[in-house]
């Protein structure tokens, strides 16, 4: 009985992960292919990486994308943390439903709708206020903040909902002002969630094609826009090389942040245990005395 269940589990997981990973592995393998025909093996070569490093269009687009992603992820974490805190900690207030709707709708909203609506907003704003002048990095960053902060909000909100709030209450009882409690108690505890929220926002921004295409002006092509226009014409091996670099960066990033978080967790657990032990000792000595 149990054996059958284990077999079922092994088969399901093997097939599932094969489906998820074969495409990625194939991208990596063919990035080292000598032949221009992406699926015919013509021997090992790293020449496509060289070609990639000489492709100014791709390099410029990648640089713009990195700048946009870093900037918008940082601001999205600030706004998303505020929104998550308001939703998880402020209790019911007038307009809470609207706020929670505005933070969850971007998670599922088809990107063509978000992109079109943001573009029309920017055009209208330019007509009425004269800002933003034209479209470019500013409009891309504003759009990316808007759709990525929703993801940060969900991450922060669910972390706060899980979190034991007795520490916060204790600090309040001891007379700390709310903002002090937030910066000294809440923020350090939810920091891993902020970190993963930032990484999530960064990745989503780096990857976005549809919204960006609507709000980008001429001369501000991001990396996905360049990739999309190249890929539309067919497969090209230097895109495989680019994909491999991205996969490697992500793998390293996830691994490092995983290790860091684990370490922090271990330290925190140890601190908590020490605090408990100290507490116990005190109680014991009090009892003796």
């Amino acid at each position, binding site marked *: 009985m149990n054996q059958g269940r284990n077999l079922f589990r092994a088969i399901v997981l093997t097939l*599932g992960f094969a489906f*998820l990973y074969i495409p990625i592995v194939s991208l990596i393998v*063919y990035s080292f292919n000598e032949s221009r025909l992406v699926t015919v093996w013509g021997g090992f070569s790293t020449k496509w990486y060289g070609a990639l490093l000489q492709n100014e269009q791709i390099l410029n687009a990648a640089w713009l994308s990195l700048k946009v992603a870093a900037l918008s992820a940082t601001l999205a974490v600030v706004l998303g943390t505020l929104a998550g805190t308001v939703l998880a900690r402020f*209790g019911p207030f007038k307009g809470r439903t609207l706020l929670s709707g*505005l*933070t969850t709708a971007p998670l599922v*909203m088809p990107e063509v709708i978000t992109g079109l*609506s943001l573009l*029309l907003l920017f055009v209208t704003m330019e007509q009425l206020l004269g800002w933003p002048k034209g479209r470019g990095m500013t409009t891309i960053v504003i759009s990316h903040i808007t759709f990525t902060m929703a993801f940060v909000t969900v991450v922060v909100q669910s972390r706060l909902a899980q979190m034991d709030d007795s520490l916060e209450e204790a600090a309040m009882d001891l007379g700390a002002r709310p903002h002090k409690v937030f910066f000294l108690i809440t923020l350090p505890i939810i920091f891993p969630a902020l970190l993963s929220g930032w990484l999530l926002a960064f990745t989503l921004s780096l990857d976005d094609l549809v919204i960006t295409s609507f709000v980008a002006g001429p001369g501000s092509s991001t990396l996905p826009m360049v990739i999309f226009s190249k890929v539309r014409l067919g497969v090209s091996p230097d895109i495989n090389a680019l994909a491999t670099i991205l996969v490697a960066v992500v793998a390293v990033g*996830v691994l490092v942040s995983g290790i860091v978080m684990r370490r922090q967790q271990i330290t925190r657990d140890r601190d908590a245990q020490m605090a408990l032990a100290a507490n116990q000792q005190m109680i014991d000595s009090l009892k003796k005395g």
Partner: protein
Amino acid sequence: MKGLLKRFGVGGRTFVTAIPYVWLLVFFLIPFIIVLKISFSTTQIAMPPYAPLLHWAGEKMLQVQLNLGNFAFLVEDNLYWMAYLNSIFVAGVSTLICLVIGYPIAYAIARSNPSTRNVLMLLIVLPFWTSFLLRVYAWIGILKNNGLLNNFLIWIGAIDQPIQMLQTDFAVYVGIVYSYLPFMILPLYANLEKLDLTLLEAAADLGSRPWQAFYKITLPLSVPGIIAGCLLVFIPAVGEFVIPSLLGDPGMLMIGKVLWTEFFNNRDWPVASAVAIALLLFLVIPIMYFQRAQDAETGAGAHR
């Protein structure tokens, strides 16, 4: 700063609430109102390419010109109907396939021992962190006529001639299922992991067979996870643009592609806006449903 705020009767709380609130109102809600406005406007060869709705006609007479032509156009032209219906059908079928594939995977992970569980979930989420666009691109290399899959099938002798797979509906389904599968697995796993196993033990003690226990206990209890996963896949898939334009037949009608073409190729902003409004009207109910489910999940500690 604080004194200033106090003087206006604005507490710290209101201030903290106002920042994200105002941002979302300005950059998420108001844009939809503008889209609605422009969907009633007429096309004009100018920049921006639409006529203003309001204009002053003579002495203090504000004239509003509502043009319902764009919506009439959507209703009359079969192309749009076909595109809407086809998008809903494709998204619906893909959601079902995601559920059928994702449920056993989520179930298998939730029943693994706790230490492998986290590693397996990390492996599920990991592809999501690599570029979506590049993962769709990978399927071009697999599905094309001299691609990996056809070569493999010829090599094992299943077929003699390559089958046309790229630029078919099949490729679009593969692309959508592949890209959105993690979104199905995540909420399902979160739900199945919480399942109280003693319920299953009790069922077994009372003589029910494992599949009976699954059908009568696990499945009904996992309905919230199923709904969350399905909405998370279905809603964005209806408006999907990248997957059908890279993997599908160029003539395949999907509403996301239609909107894109109206906007970028035909430069018809009012019709593009009308397409967006009609799509939004259809999606408003599932989105609100999703929002309620999401709020129940994450906002558990909100109403203290």
